[in-house]
Protein backbone atom coordinates (compact mmCIF):
# COMPACT_ATOMS: atom_id res chain seq x y z
CA UNK A 1 0.00 0.00 0.00
CA UNK A 2 1.05 3.60 -0.23
CA UNK A 3 3.40 4.72 2.45
CA UNK A 4 4.81 8.16 2.98
CA UNK A 5 7.92 6.95 4.74
CA UNK A 6 10.89 8.65 3.16
CA UNK A 7 13.74 6.56 1.92
CA UNK A 8 15.69 4.72 3.18
CA UNK A 9 13.09 2.02 3.47
CA UNK A 10 13.46 -0.49 6.27
CA UNK A 11 13.82 -4.13 5.35
CA UNK A 12 10.22 -5.03 6.08
CA UNK A 13 8.79 -2.11 4.22
CA UNK A 14 10.94 -3.01 1.29
CA UNK A 15 9.55 -6.51 1.29
CA UNK A 16 6.01 -5.15 1.32
CA UNK A 17 6.71 -2.81 -1.49
CA UNK A 18 8.84 -5.11 -3.56
CA UNK A 19 6.66 -4.61 -6.60
CA UNK A 20 7.58 -0.93 -6.81
CA UNK A 21 10.49 -0.17 -9.10
CA UNK A 22 13.68 0.91 -7.33
CA UNK A 23 15.47 3.83 -8.85
CA UNK A 24 19.04 4.68 -7.92
CA UNK A 25 20.07 8.27 -8.30
CA UNK A 26 23.84 8.64 -8.43
CA UNK A 27 25.15 12.16 -8.27
CA UNK A 28 28.40 13.96 -8.18
CA UNK A 29 29.69 15.70 -5.10
CA UNK A 30 27.04 16.25 -2.48
CA UNK A 31 29.44 18.77 -1.03
CA UNK A 32 28.25 20.88 -3.92
CA UNK A 33 25.04 22.79 -3.40
CA UNK A 34 23.96 22.16 -6.95
CA UNK A 35 23.79 18.43 -6.49
CA UNK A 36 22.23 18.76 -3.13
CA UNK A 37 19.42 20.76 -4.67
CA UNK A 38 19.16 18.05 -7.26
CA UNK A 39 18.92 15.40 -4.58
CA UNK A 40 16.33 17.36 -2.61
CA UNK A 41 14.24 17.82 -5.72
CA UNK A 42 14.36 14.10 -6.33
CA UNK A 43 13.50 13.23 -2.75
CA UNK A 44 10.55 15.60 -2.83
CA UNK A 45 9.36 14.06 -6.07
CA UNK A 46 9.60 10.58 -4.60
CA UNK A 47 7.58 11.66 -1.60
CA UNK A 48 4.88 12.95 -3.87
CA UNK A 49 4.91 9.74 -5.89
CA UNK A 50 5.68 7.30 -3.13
CA UNK A 51 3.39 4.71 -4.63
CA UNK A 52 5.21 4.68 -7.93
CA UNK A 53 8.82 4.01 -7.01
CA UNK A 54 11.50 3.81 -4.39
CA UNK A 55 14.52 6.07 -4.45
CA UNK A 56 18.10 5.37 -3.45
CA UNK A 57 20.03 8.62 -3.66
CA UNK A 58 23.81 8.62 -3.38
CA UNK A 59 26.61 10.95 -4.22
CA UNK A 60 30.34 10.98 -3.92
CA UNK A 61 32.33 13.08 -1.50
CA UNK A 62 34.40 14.78 -4.05
CA UNK A 63 33.53 15.53 -7.63
CA UNK A 64 36.87 14.17 -8.73
CA UNK A 65 36.50 10.81 -7.07
CA UNK A 66 35.51 8.97 -10.21
CA UNK A 67 36.51 5.58 -8.88
CA UNK A 68 34.10 5.88 -6.01
CA UNK A 69 31.27 6.72 -8.36
CA UNK A 70 32.02 3.69 -10.48
CA UNK A 71 32.02 1.59 -7.33
CA UNK A 72 28.59 2.96 -6.65
CA UNK A 73 27.24 1.98 -10.05
CA UNK A 74 28.60 -1.53 -9.61
CA UNK A 75 27.03 -1.68 -6.24
CA UNK A 76 23.64 -0.67 -7.56
CA UNK A 77 23.97 -3.44 -10.11
CA UNK A 78 24.59 -5.84 -7.26
CA UNK A 79 21.62 -4.38 -5.41
CA UNK A 80 19.53 -5.19 -8.48
CA UNK A 81 17.86 -1.84 -8.72
CA UNK A 82 15.56 -1.34 -11.68
CA UNK A 83 16.91 1.92 -12.95
CA UNK A 84 19.99 4.07 -12.54
CA UNK A 85 19.86 7.81 -13.04
CA UNK A 86 23.38 9.13 -13.08
CA UNK A 87 25.17 12.44 -13.22
CA UNK A 88 28.59 11.10 -14.19
CA UNK A 89 31.67 12.61 -12.65
CA UNK A 90 33.57 11.73 -15.79
CA UNK A 91 31.98 11.53 -19.18
CA UNK A 92 34.22 8.75 -20.40
CA UNK A 93 35.25 6.66 -17.44
CA UNK A 94 31.69 5.85 -16.39
CA UNK A 95 30.49 4.55 -19.70
CA UNK A 96 31.80 1.05 -19.18
CA UNK A 97 30.10 0.68 -15.81
CA UNK A 98 26.80 2.00 -17.15
CA UNK A 99 27.00 -0.28 -20.14
CA UNK A 100 27.37 -3.15 -17.70
CA UNK A 101 24.23 -2.00 -15.91
CA UNK A 102 22.31 -1.93 -19.15
CA UNK A 103 23.57 -5.36 -20.00
CA UNK A 104 22.27 -6.51 -16.62
CA UNK A 105 18.82 -5.38 -17.72
CA UNK A 106 18.68 -2.05 -15.95
CA UNK A 107 17.42 1.19 -17.31
CA UNK A 108 20.11 3.84 -17.35
CA UNK A 109 19.45 7.54 -17.74
CA UNK A 110 22.23 10.07 -18.02
CA UNK A 111 21.63 13.47 -16.46
CA UNK A 112 23.51 16.71 -16.01
CA UNK A 113 26.80 15.82 -17.70
CA UNK A 114 26.53 14.09 -21.06
CA UNK A 115 28.48 10.95 -21.78
CA UNK A 116 31.12 11.25 -24.44
CA UNK A 117 29.51 10.36 -27.76
CA UNK A 118 32.59 8.70 -29.20
CA UNK A 119 32.84 6.36 -26.25
CA UNK A 120 29.13 5.55 -26.40
CA UNK A 121 29.52 4.73 -30.08
CA UNK A 122 32.52 2.56 -29.45
CA UNK A 123 30.65 0.67 -26.76
CA UNK A 124 27.60 0.53 -29.02
CA UNK A 125 25.30 1.65 -26.24
CA UNK A 126 22.57 4.23 -26.22
CA UNK A 127 21.89 6.09 -23.03
CA UNK A 128 19.31 8.84 -23.06
CA UNK A 129 20.47 12.17 -21.74
CA UNK A 130 18.52 14.73 -19.78
CA UNK A 131 20.30 17.89 -18.85
CA UNK A 132 21.35 21.39 -19.53
CA UNK A 133 23.82 22.55 -22.10
CA UNK A 134 26.51 24.13 -19.99
CA UNK A 135 28.21 25.67 -22.96
CA UNK A 136 25.06 27.41 -24.08
CA UNK A 137 24.37 28.56 -20.54
CA UNK A 138 27.83 30.01 -20.16
CA UNK A 139 27.47 31.65 -23.53
CA UNK A 140 24.30 33.37 -22.32
CA UNK A 141 26.05 34.66 -19.22
CA UNK A 142 29.01 35.80 -21.28
CA UNK A 143 26.82 37.54 -23.83
CA UNK A 144 25.06 39.41 -21.07
CA UNK A 145 28.38 40.47 -19.62
CA UNK A 146 29.67 41.58 -23.01
CA UNK A 147 26.86 44.11 -23.23
CA UNK A 148 28.36 45.94 -20.26
CA UNK A 149 31.86 46.04 -21.81
CA UNK A 150 33.53 47.64 -24.77
CA UNK A 151 35.20 45.50 -27.43
CA UNK A 152 38.87 45.02 -26.64
CA UNK A 153 38.36 45.08 -22.89
CA UNK A 154 40.52 42.67 -20.91
CA UNK A 155 38.72 39.85 -19.12
CA UNK A 156 39.83 36.76 -17.21
CA UNK A 157 38.24 33.37 -16.68
CA UNK A 158 38.34 31.31 -13.50
CA UNK A 159 37.71 27.72 -14.49
CA UNK A 160 36.38 24.81 -12.53
CA UNK A 161 38.40 21.65 -11.96
CA UNK A 162 40.48 21.10 -15.10
CA UNK A 163 39.07 17.90 -16.48
CA UNK A 164 35.47 18.21 -15.36
CA UNK A 165 33.23 18.10 -18.40
CA UNK A 166 30.99 20.95 -17.33
CA UNK A 167 34.04 23.03 -16.45
CA UNK A 168 35.31 22.60 -19.96
CA UNK A 169 31.89 23.38 -21.41
CA UNK A 170 31.53 26.53 -19.36
CA UNK A 171 34.99 27.66 -20.30
CA UNK A 172 34.12 27.14 -23.95
CA UNK A 173 30.85 29.02 -23.57
CA UNK A 174 32.57 31.94 -21.87
CA UNK A 175 35.28 31.95 -24.51
CA UNK A 176 32.71 31.85 -27.33
CA UNK A 177 30.89 34.84 -25.96
CA UNK A 178 34.05 36.84 -25.38
CA UNK A 179 35.40 36.05 -28.81
CA UNK A 180 32.11 37.00 -30.44
CA UNK A 181 32.08 40.34 -28.64
CA UNK A 182 35.76 41.02 -29.31
CA UNK A 183 36.98 40.93 -25.72
CA UNK A 184 40.50 39.92 -24.85
CA UNK A 185 40.84 36.95 -22.48
CA UNK A 186 44.15 37.75 -20.80
CA UNK A 187 44.32 34.71 -18.54
CA UNK A 188 42.30 31.64 -17.64
CA UNK A 189 43.17 29.61 -14.55
CA UNK A 190 41.50 26.99 -12.44
CA UNK A 191 39.95 27.77 -9.07
CA UNK A 192 38.94 24.15 -8.54
CA UNK A 193 35.34 25.19 -7.86
CA UNK A 194 36.44 26.55 -4.46
CA UNK A 195 35.96 29.97 -2.93
CA UNK A 196 39.35 30.11 -1.33
CA UNK A 197 41.37 28.94 -4.31
CA UNK A 198 39.42 31.23 -6.63
CA UNK A 199 40.08 34.09 -4.26
CA UNK A 200 43.82 33.55 -4.47
CA UNK A 201 43.79 33.29 -8.22
CA UNK A 202 41.52 36.30 -8.64
CA UNK A 203 43.65 38.45 -6.35
CA UNK A 204 46.73 37.66 -8.39
CA UNK A 205 44.88 38.30 -11.64
CA UNK A 206 43.64 41.73 -10.69
CA UNK A 207 47.02 42.98 -9.57
CA UNK A 208 48.84 41.48 -12.48
CA UNK A 209 46.32 42.77 -14.99
CA UNK A 210 45.19 46.13 -13.64
CA UNK A 211 43.31 46.82 -16.84
CA UNK A 212 40.98 43.89 -16.18
CA UNK A 213 37.31 44.69 -16.67
CA UNK A 214 35.60 41.41 -15.83
CA UNK A 215 36.05 38.04 -14.14
CA UNK A 216 34.07 35.10 -15.49
CA UNK A 217 33.74 32.40 -12.88
CA UNK A 218 32.65 28.88 -13.71
CA UNK A 219 30.55 28.67 -10.57
CA UNK A 220 29.10 30.96 -7.93
CA UNK A 221 31.30 29.75 -5.07
CA UNK A 222 34.29 30.95 -7.02
CA UNK A 223 32.47 34.17 -7.83
CA UNK A 224 32.20 34.77 -4.08
CA UNK A 225 35.95 34.43 -3.84
CA UNK A 226 36.45 36.78 -6.73
CA UNK A 227 34.16 39.39 -5.16
CA UNK A 228 36.13 39.16 -1.94
CA UNK A 229 39.37 39.68 -3.85
CA UNK A 230 37.95 42.80 -5.48
CA UNK A 231 36.80 44.12 -2.16
CA UNK A 232 40.22 43.54 -0.61
CA UNK A 233 41.88 45.30 -3.53
CA UNK A 234 39.43 48.19 -3.37
CA UNK A 235 38.33 47.51 -6.92
CA UNK A 236 34.70 46.87 -6.23
CA UNK A 237 32.58 48.14 -9.03
CA UNK A 238 35.52 48.51 -11.37
CA UNK A 239 35.62 44.86 -12.34
CA UNK A 240 32.48 42.95 -13.19
CA UNK A 241 31.94 39.42 -11.93
CA UNK A 242 29.72 36.73 -13.34
CA UNK A 243 29.08 33.27 -11.99
CA UNK A 244 27.11 30.16 -12.73
CA UNK A 245 24.58 28.00 -10.82
CA UNK A 246 22.50 30.69 -9.09
CA UNK A 247 23.09 29.46 -5.54
CA UNK A 248 21.27 31.03 -2.63
CA UNK A 249 24.31 32.87 -1.37
CA UNK A 250 24.65 35.07 -4.44
CA UNK A 251 21.10 36.41 -4.40
CA UNK A 252 21.87 39.52 -2.43
CA UNK A 253 25.13 40.01 -4.31
CA UNK A 254 23.11 40.04 -7.50
CA UNK A 255 20.77 42.56 -6.00
CA UNK A 256 23.63 44.75 -4.90
CA UNK A 257 25.15 44.42 -8.34
CA UNK A 258 28.34 42.95 -7.02
CA UNK A 259 27.74 39.95 -9.20
CA UNK A 260 26.37 40.88 -12.57
CA UNK A 261 24.82 37.64 -13.68
CA UNK A 262 24.67 33.92 -13.18
CA UNK A 263 22.92 30.99 -14.77
CA UNK A 264 20.22 28.82 -13.31
CA UNK A 265 20.06 25.24 -14.51
CA UNK A 266 17.07 24.31 -12.35
CA UNK A 267 18.94 21.64 -10.53
CA UNK A 268 15.85 20.49 -8.68
CA UNK A 269 14.21 19.61 -11.98
CA UNK A 270 17.09 17.82 -13.66
CA UNK A 271 16.99 14.72 -11.52
CA UNK A 272 13.21 14.69 -11.57
CA UNK A 273 13.18 14.70 -15.35
CA UNK A 274 15.72 11.90 -15.28
CA UNK A 275 13.66 9.85 -12.90
CA UNK A 276 10.48 10.35 -14.87
CA UNK A 277 12.33 9.29 -17.99
CA UNK A 278 13.51 6.19 -16.26
CA UNK A 279 10.00 5.33 -15.05
CA UNK A 280 8.61 5.84 -18.55
CA UNK A 281 11.26 3.61 -19.97
CA UNK A 282 10.52 0.93 -17.43
CA UNK A 283 6.86 1.04 -18.34
CA UNK A 284 7.08 1.32 -22.10
CA UNK A 285 10.51 -0.01 -22.88
CA UNK A 286 10.85 2.64 -25.56
CA UNK A 287 13.83 4.91 -25.27
CA UNK A 288 12.87 8.56 -25.53
CA UNK A 289 15.08 11.08 -27.23
CA UNK A 290 17.63 13.16 -25.39
CA UNK A 291 16.17 16.16 -23.67
CA UNK A 292 17.83 19.42 -23.01
CA UNK A 293 16.69 21.12 -19.83
CA UNK A 294 16.52 24.88 -19.73
CA UNK A 295 19.30 27.13 -18.56
CA UNK A 296 18.20 30.58 -17.57
CA UNK A 297 20.20 33.73 -17.37
CA UNK A 298 19.75 35.33 -13.96
CA UNK A 299 20.53 38.99 -13.53
CA UNK A 300 19.77 41.55 -10.90
CA UNK A 301 16.29 43.07 -11.20
CA UNK A 302 17.83 46.49 -11.75
CA UNK A 303 21.61 46.57 -12.00
CA UNK A 304 22.87 49.43 -9.82
CA UNK A 305 26.13 50.05 -11.46
Amino acid sequence: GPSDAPSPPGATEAAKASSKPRVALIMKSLANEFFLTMENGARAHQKAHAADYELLANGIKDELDVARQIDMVEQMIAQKVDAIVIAPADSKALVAACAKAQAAGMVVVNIDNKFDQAVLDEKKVRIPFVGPDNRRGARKVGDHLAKQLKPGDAVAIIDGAPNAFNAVQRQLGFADAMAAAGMKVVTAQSGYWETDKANQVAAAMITEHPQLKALLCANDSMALGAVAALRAAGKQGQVLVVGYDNIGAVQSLLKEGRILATADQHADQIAVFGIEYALDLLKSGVAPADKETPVELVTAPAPTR
Partner: protein
Amino acid sequence: MAGTTPAWRHWIGEFLGLLIGLAALITVFGLTTDHFLSGTHLRTIANQIPSAVLVATGMTCVLILGQIDLSVGSVLGFAGAMLGVAMTRWHLPLPLAVALALAVGAICGAFNGLVSMRWRLPTFIVTLGMLEMARGAAHAVTGSQTQYIGSAVGRLADASILGFSLPFLVALVVVVATHILMVKTVFGRYTVAIGTNEEAARLSGIDPRGVKLSVFIGTGVLSALAAVIDTSRFQAANPNAGLGLELNAIAAAVIGGTSLMGGRGSVLRTFLGVVIIAVLNSGLAAIGAKDEIKRLITGAVIIAAVIVDVYRQRGVRRPA
Protein backbone atom coordinates in the same frame (compact mmCIF):
# COMPACT_ATOMS: atom_id res chain seq x y z
CA MET B 1 55.58 -9.67 16.70
CA ALA B 2 57.03 -12.82 18.09
CA GLY B 3 55.46 -14.07 21.26
CA THR B 4 55.30 -17.02 23.48
CA THR B 5 51.57 -17.60 23.25
CA PRO B 6 50.59 -20.60 21.15
CA ALA B 7 50.31 -19.77 17.49
CA TRP B 8 46.55 -20.13 17.16
CA ARG B 9 45.80 -17.90 20.12
CA HIS B 10 48.22 -15.40 18.73
CA TRP B 11 46.41 -15.41 15.41
CA ILE B 12 42.98 -15.08 16.90
CA GLY B 13 44.19 -12.28 19.12
CA GLU B 14 45.71 -10.51 16.15
CA PHE B 15 42.55 -10.50 14.13
CA LEU B 16 39.77 -10.81 16.64
CA GLY B 17 39.00 -7.14 17.13
CA LEU B 18 38.95 -6.44 13.42
CA LEU B 19 36.86 -9.47 12.61
CA ILE B 20 34.33 -8.61 15.30
CA GLY B 21 34.10 -5.09 13.95
CA LEU B 22 33.66 -6.39 10.42
CA ALA B 23 31.04 -8.92 11.48
CA ALA B 24 29.15 -6.20 13.33
CA LEU B 25 29.13 -3.95 10.28
CA ILE B 26 27.97 -6.73 7.98
CA THR B 27 25.24 -7.73 10.39
CA VAL B 28 23.93 -4.20 10.73
CA PHE B 29 23.86 -3.61 7.00
CA GLY B 30 22.51 -7.08 6.32
CA LEU B 31 19.55 -6.35 8.56
CA THR B 32 18.82 -2.86 7.29
CA THR B 33 19.03 -3.52 3.55
CA ASP B 34 17.71 -6.12 1.15
CA HIS B 35 20.53 -7.29 -0.95
CA PHE B 36 23.57 -6.54 1.11
CA LEU B 37 24.16 -10.09 2.18
CA SER B 38 23.84 -11.52 -1.30
CA GLY B 39 26.83 -13.26 -2.79
CA THR B 40 26.78 -10.90 -5.74
CA HIS B 41 27.05 -7.91 -3.53
CA LEU B 42 29.89 -9.24 -1.45
CA ARG B 43 31.66 -10.21 -4.64
CA THR B 44 31.07 -6.72 -5.93
CA ILE B 45 32.76 -5.31 -2.88
CA ALA B 46 35.59 -7.78 -3.31
CA ASN B 47 36.08 -6.62 -6.86
CA GLN B 48 36.11 -2.98 -5.90
CA ILE B 49 38.90 -3.09 -3.36
CA PRO B 50 41.96 -4.43 -5.21
CA SER B 51 43.50 -1.05 -5.93
CA ALA B 52 42.87 0.19 -2.41
CA VAL B 53 44.37 -3.01 -1.06
CA LEU B 54 47.50 -2.67 -3.14
CA VAL B 55 48.06 0.93 -2.18
CA ALA B 56 47.38 0.26 1.50
CA THR B 57 49.77 -2.68 1.40
CA GLY B 58 52.55 -0.45 0.13
CA MET B 59 51.64 2.20 2.68
CA THR B 60 51.80 -0.33 5.49
CA CYS B 61 55.35 -1.28 4.54
CA VAL B 62 56.35 2.37 4.42
CA LEU B 63 54.77 2.97 7.82
CA ILE B 64 56.47 -0.08 9.31
CA LEU B 65 59.69 1.42 8.01
CA GLY B 66 58.90 4.50 10.09
CA GLN B 67 58.31 6.65 7.01
CA ILE B 68 55.26 7.88 5.17
CA ASP B 69 54.30 8.15 1.52
CA LEU B 70 51.75 10.81 0.72
CA SER B 71 52.27 10.46 -3.01
CA VAL B 72 50.57 7.09 -3.50
CA GLY B 73 47.37 8.58 -4.89
CA SER B 74 49.13 10.92 -7.28
CA VAL B 75 51.51 8.22 -8.43
CA LEU B 76 48.47 6.07 -9.12
CA GLY B 77 47.07 8.93 -11.19
CA PHE B 78 50.31 9.48 -13.05
CA ALA B 79 50.95 5.83 -13.79
CA GLY B 80 47.38 5.42 -15.01
CA ALA B 81 47.74 8.50 -17.16
CA MET B 82 50.86 7.08 -18.76
CA LEU B 83 49.11 3.79 -19.38
CA GLY B 84 46.24 5.65 -21.02
CA VAL B 85 48.41 7.83 -23.16
CA ALA B 86 50.64 4.93 -24.13
CA MET B 87 47.67 2.99 -25.39
CA THR B 88 45.53 5.68 -26.95
CA ARG B 89 48.13 8.00 -28.41
CA TRP B 90 51.24 5.95 -28.86
CA HIS B 91 49.32 2.75 -29.57
CA LEU B 92 51.70 0.60 -27.58
CA PRO B 93 50.62 -3.00 -27.02
CA LEU B 94 49.09 -3.68 -23.62
CA PRO B 95 52.07 -5.48 -22.01
CA LEU B 96 54.44 -2.70 -23.00
CA ALA B 97 52.06 -0.02 -21.76
CA VAL B 98 51.63 -1.82 -18.45
CA ALA B 99 55.39 -2.15 -18.12
CA LEU B 100 55.70 1.57 -18.76
CA ALA B 101 53.13 2.36 -16.07
CA LEU B 102 54.92 0.15 -13.56
CA ALA B 103 58.20 1.79 -14.47
CA VAL B 104 56.65 5.18 -13.81
CA GLY B 105 55.62 3.97 -10.36
CA ALA B 106 59.07 2.62 -9.69
CA ILE B 107 60.70 5.88 -10.76
CA CYS B 108 58.44 8.00 -8.56
CA GLY B 109 59.14 5.68 -5.63
CA ALA B 110 62.86 5.79 -6.31
CA PHE B 111 62.73 9.58 -6.41
CA ASN B 112 60.99 9.64 -3.03
CA GLY B 113 63.55 7.32 -1.53
CA LEU B 114 66.65 8.82 -3.08
CA VAL B 115 65.84 12.46 -2.47
CA SER B 116 64.88 11.91 1.13
CA MET B 117 68.02 9.91 1.78
CA ARG B 118 70.40 12.14 -0.13
CA TRP B 119 69.42 15.26 1.81
CA ARG B 120 68.09 13.48 4.89
CA LEU B 121 64.67 15.04 4.42
CA PRO B 122 61.54 13.87 6.16
CA THR B 123 59.70 11.65 3.72
CA PHE B 124 56.53 13.46 4.66
CA ILE B 125 57.72 16.51 2.80
CA VAL B 126 59.42 14.76 -0.09
CA THR B 127 56.35 12.70 -0.81
CA LEU B 128 54.15 15.75 -0.36
CA GLY B 129 56.23 17.36 -3.09
CA MET B 130 55.82 14.23 -5.18
CA LEU B 131 52.07 14.36 -4.53
CA GLU B 132 51.95 17.71 -6.30
CA MET B 133 54.45 16.83 -8.99
CA ALA B 134 53.00 13.48 -10.00
CA ARG B 135 49.51 14.96 -10.16
CA GLY B 136 50.84 17.79 -12.28
CA ALA B 137 52.55 15.27 -14.53
CA ALA B 138 49.35 13.25 -14.84
CA HIS B 139 47.51 16.33 -16.02
CA ALA B 140 50.36 17.35 -18.28
CA VAL B 141 50.60 14.05 -20.17
CA THR B 142 46.85 13.71 -20.61
CA GLY B 143 46.14 17.38 -21.20
CA SER B 144 43.75 16.94 -18.27
CA GLN B 145 41.55 14.72 -20.40
CA THR B 146 40.32 11.34 -19.35
CA GLN B 147 41.82 8.85 -21.76
CA TYR B 148 39.25 6.36 -22.92
CA ILE B 149 40.95 3.12 -23.83
CA GLY B 150 38.15 0.64 -24.21
CA SER B 151 38.10 -3.10 -23.96
CA ALA B 152 41.74 -3.46 -25.00
CA VAL B 153 42.58 -2.89 -21.37
CA GLY B 154 39.27 -4.01 -19.93
CA ARG B 155 39.95 -7.68 -20.38
CA LEU B 156 42.43 -7.59 -17.53
CA ALA B 157 39.69 -6.77 -15.08
CA ASP B 158 37.10 -8.98 -16.72
CA ALA B 159 38.97 -12.23 -16.25
CA SER B 160 37.60 -13.98 -13.23
CA ILE B 161 37.73 -17.18 -11.26
CA LEU B 162 34.71 -18.24 -9.18
CA GLY B 163 33.31 -14.75 -9.59
CA PHE B 164 36.41 -13.14 -8.16
CA SER B 165 38.09 -10.89 -10.63
CA LEU B 166 41.68 -11.30 -11.61
CA PRO B 167 42.56 -8.01 -9.87
CA PHE B 168 41.13 -9.26 -6.59
CA LEU B 169 43.16 -12.41 -6.80
CA VAL B 170 46.26 -10.41 -7.69
CA ALA B 171 45.68 -8.20 -4.68
CA LEU B 172 45.28 -11.22 -2.43
CA VAL B 173 48.50 -12.72 -3.72
CA VAL B 174 50.31 -9.43 -3.17
CA VAL B 175 49.00 -9.17 0.38
CA VAL B 176 50.03 -12.67 1.31
CA ALA B 177 53.39 -12.35 -0.39
CA THR B 178 54.11 -9.03 1.30
CA HIS B 179 53.06 -10.43 4.63
CA ILE B 180 55.44 -13.33 4.22
CA LEU B 181 58.14 -10.94 3.06
CA MET B 182 57.76 -8.86 6.20
CA VAL B 183 57.55 -11.73 8.66
CA LYS B 184 59.72 -14.47 7.25
CA THR B 185 62.58 -12.84 5.44
CA VAL B 186 65.69 -10.94 6.32
CA PHE B 187 64.44 -8.00 4.30
CA GLY B 188 61.23 -7.82 6.31
CA ARG B 189 62.99 -8.03 9.63
CA TYR B 190 65.35 -5.28 8.56
CA THR B 191 62.36 -3.14 7.63
CA VAL B 192 60.91 -3.62 11.10
CA ALA B 193 64.28 -2.98 12.71
CA ILE B 194 64.84 0.25 10.82
CA GLY B 195 61.34 1.41 11.55
CA THR B 196 61.75 0.75 15.25
CA ASN B 197 65.11 2.35 15.74
CA GLU B 198 67.01 3.34 12.66
CA GLU B 199 70.11 4.36 14.56
CA ALA B 200 70.30 1.07 16.42
CA ALA B 201 69.77 -0.80 13.19
CA ARG B 202 72.57 1.14 11.57
CA LEU B 203 74.83 0.42 14.52
CA SER B 204 74.03 -3.27 14.19
CA GLY B 205 75.53 -3.16 10.75
CA ILE B 206 72.40 -2.89 8.66
CA ASP B 207 72.55 -0.45 5.78
CA PRO B 208 69.15 1.27 5.94
CA ARG B 209 69.51 2.84 2.52
CA GLY B 210 69.00 -0.25 0.44
CA VAL B 211 65.99 -1.30 2.46
CA LYS B 212 64.43 2.15 2.35
CA LEU B 213 64.91 2.52 -1.35
CA SER B 214 63.41 -0.89 -2.00
CA VAL B 215 60.37 -0.17 0.13
CA PHE B 216 59.70 3.13 -1.61
CA ILE B 217 60.17 1.63 -5.04
CA GLY B 218 57.91 -1.25 -4.04
CA THR B 219 55.24 1.15 -2.88
CA GLY B 220 55.51 3.08 -6.12
CA VAL B 221 55.15 -0.11 -8.13
CA LEU B 222 52.15 -1.19 -6.07
CA SER B 223 50.50 2.18 -6.71
CA ALA B 224 51.18 1.75 -10.40
CA LEU B 225 49.76 -1.76 -10.31
CA ALA B 226 46.68 -0.32 -8.65
CA ALA B 227 46.53 2.19 -11.49
CA VAL B 228 46.63 -0.59 -14.06
CA ILE B 229 43.80 -2.35 -12.26
CA ASP B 230 41.69 0.78 -11.99
CA THR B 231 42.30 1.69 -15.58
CA SER B 232 41.29 -1.72 -16.70
CA ARG B 233 38.15 -1.66 -14.55
CA PHE B 234 37.10 1.70 -15.91
CA GLN B 235 38.52 1.14 -19.37
CA ALA B 236 39.71 4.70 -19.06
CA ALA B 237 42.55 6.59 -17.41
CA ASN B 238 41.59 9.64 -15.44
CA PRO B 239 44.31 12.10 -14.42
CA ASN B 240 42.46 12.72 -11.16
CA ALA B 241 42.43 9.07 -10.21
CA GLY B 242 43.58 8.32 -6.69
CA LEU B 243 42.83 11.76 -5.31
CA GLY B 244 43.01 11.69 -1.53
CA LEU B 245 43.88 8.02 -1.54
CA GLU B 246 46.83 8.56 0.81
CA LEU B 247 44.63 9.32 3.79
CA ASN B 248 42.41 6.35 3.05
CA ALA B 249 45.39 4.05 2.81
CA ILE B 250 46.84 5.35 6.05
CA ALA B 251 43.46 5.02 7.74
CA ALA B 252 43.20 1.41 6.62
CA ALA B 253 46.68 0.68 7.91
CA VAL B 254 46.05 2.36 11.24
CA ILE B 255 42.69 0.65 11.68
CA GLY B 256 44.70 -2.51 11.17
CA GLY B 257 46.94 -1.53 14.06
CA THR B 258 49.94 -0.17 12.17
CA SER B 259 51.87 2.33 14.21
CA LEU B 260 52.72 5.67 12.65
CA MET B 261 55.88 5.66 14.72
CA GLY B 262 57.23 2.74 12.74
CA GLY B 263 58.20 -0.79 13.60
CA ARG B 264 54.74 -2.16 14.11
CA GLY B 265 52.18 -3.24 11.59
CA SER B 266 50.81 -6.12 9.61
CA VAL B 267 49.79 -6.24 6.00
CA LEU B 268 47.13 -8.84 6.69
CA ARG B 269 45.48 -6.63 9.24
CA THR B 270 45.68 -3.67 6.90
CA PHE B 271 43.78 -5.80 4.41
CA LEU B 272 41.01 -6.16 6.98
CA GLY B 273 41.17 -2.40 7.49
CA VAL B 274 40.55 -1.88 3.78
CA VAL B 275 37.68 -4.36 3.84
CA ILE B 276 36.10 -2.60 6.80
CA ILE B 277 36.23 0.75 5.06
CA ALA B 278 34.88 -0.75 1.84
CA VAL B 279 32.01 -2.53 3.60
CA LEU B 280 31.18 0.64 5.44
CA ASN B 281 31.10 2.71 2.27
CA SER B 282 29.15 0.11 0.46
CA GLY B 283 26.64 -0.36 3.25
CA LEU B 284 26.06 3.35 3.60
CA ALA B 285 25.46 3.59 -0.12
CA ALA B 286 23.05 0.68 0.01
CA ILE B 287 21.07 2.47 2.70
CA GLY B 288 21.21 5.65 0.66
CA ALA B 289 21.86 7.74 3.75
CA LYS B 290 22.35 11.46 3.38
CA ASP B 291 25.89 12.52 2.75
CA GLU B 292 26.50 14.30 6.04
CA ILE B 293 25.19 11.29 7.93
CA LYS B 294 27.56 9.11 5.97
CA ARG B 295 30.47 11.28 6.95
CA LEU B 296 29.50 11.33 10.59
CA ILE B 297 29.18 7.57 10.62
CA THR B 298 32.42 7.03 8.72
CA GLY B 299 34.32 9.21 11.15
CA ALA B 300 32.82 7.51 14.17
CA VAL B 301 33.45 4.02 12.80
CA ILE B 302 37.11 4.79 12.09
CA ILE B 303 37.59 5.88 15.67
CA ALA B 304 35.56 3.00 17.06
CA ALA B 305 37.54 0.47 15.03
CA VAL B 306 40.76 1.70 16.55
CA ILE B 307 39.31 1.69 20.04
CA VAL B 308 38.30 -1.96 19.60
CA ASP B 309 41.81 -2.63 18.43
CA VAL B 310 43.29 -0.99 21.49
CA TYR B 311 41.31 -3.32 23.72
CA ARG B 312 42.45 -6.27 21.69
CA GLN B 313 46.06 -5.27 22.19
CA ARG B 314 45.53 -4.85 25.92
CA GLY B 315 44.27 -8.40 25.99
CA VAL B 316 47.20 -9.85 24.12
CA ARG B 317 50.15 -7.99 25.57
CA ARG B 318 50.82 -5.35 28.10
CA PRO B 319 51.48 -1.98 26.53
CA ALA B 320 55.20 -1.33 26.26
